[in-house]
């Protein structure tokens, strides 16, 4: 019972990073898409 309370408390202290994670993945997607875009331009010229 005691350990369960502690566990719940621990979960509550963990920050919610879902929004941050989504933003990071958005930046990652932007970098990867631009990189392949530039490579495509280079190869087609």
């Amino acid at each position, binding site marked *: 019972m005691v350990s369960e309370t502690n566990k719940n408390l621990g979960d509550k202290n963990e920050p919610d990073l879902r929004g941050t994670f989504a933003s990071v993945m958005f930046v990652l997607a932007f970098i990867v898409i631009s990189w392949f875009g530039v490579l495509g331009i280079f190869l087609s*010229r």
Partner: protein
Amino acid sequence: MHLHKFEKIWLVFGIGSLVLFMVILGYGAFWKGTHPQSHGQIIDPNNVEAYDAFKPENLGVNKVDEKRYVINVVASAFNYDLGTDKDGNAVKTIRIPKGSNVLFQVTSPDVVHGFNIAGTNVNMMIEPGYVSKMETVLNNPGEYTIVCNEYCGVGHHLMFGTLEVYE
């Protein structure tokens, strides 16, 4: 040290992309031999004609073989010397058949210039005392403007030429 699960994921992506870009850079440099266009080949900027390619009669388009060309250019403030035509007029437009392999050799007797054929991958910095070379295959027909993209003085904007790739 405690790391959030999401932090671990984006750290892996971040460090992973750094490693990936370093590998791509190394592959380009060591396996493909990519390097700056002025690759340590030095000439006397006060006497560029001492170098065969930049003798007046060798400037402009030189056909070496079927679909193989060498284009020699002296870039100076504020002009690209592309040689003269048979009437003795300065050439401003060079014509190359589509699909040709072209080696550009450019130098400068005065200041730093640029040699960019807008819309192609040909883009070099032209430094006095160095021969900048770039080999390319011109596959897309059209008219391209050769521009100086390094500020070289008051007439910088007047420095241009034309490259025509025809069918």
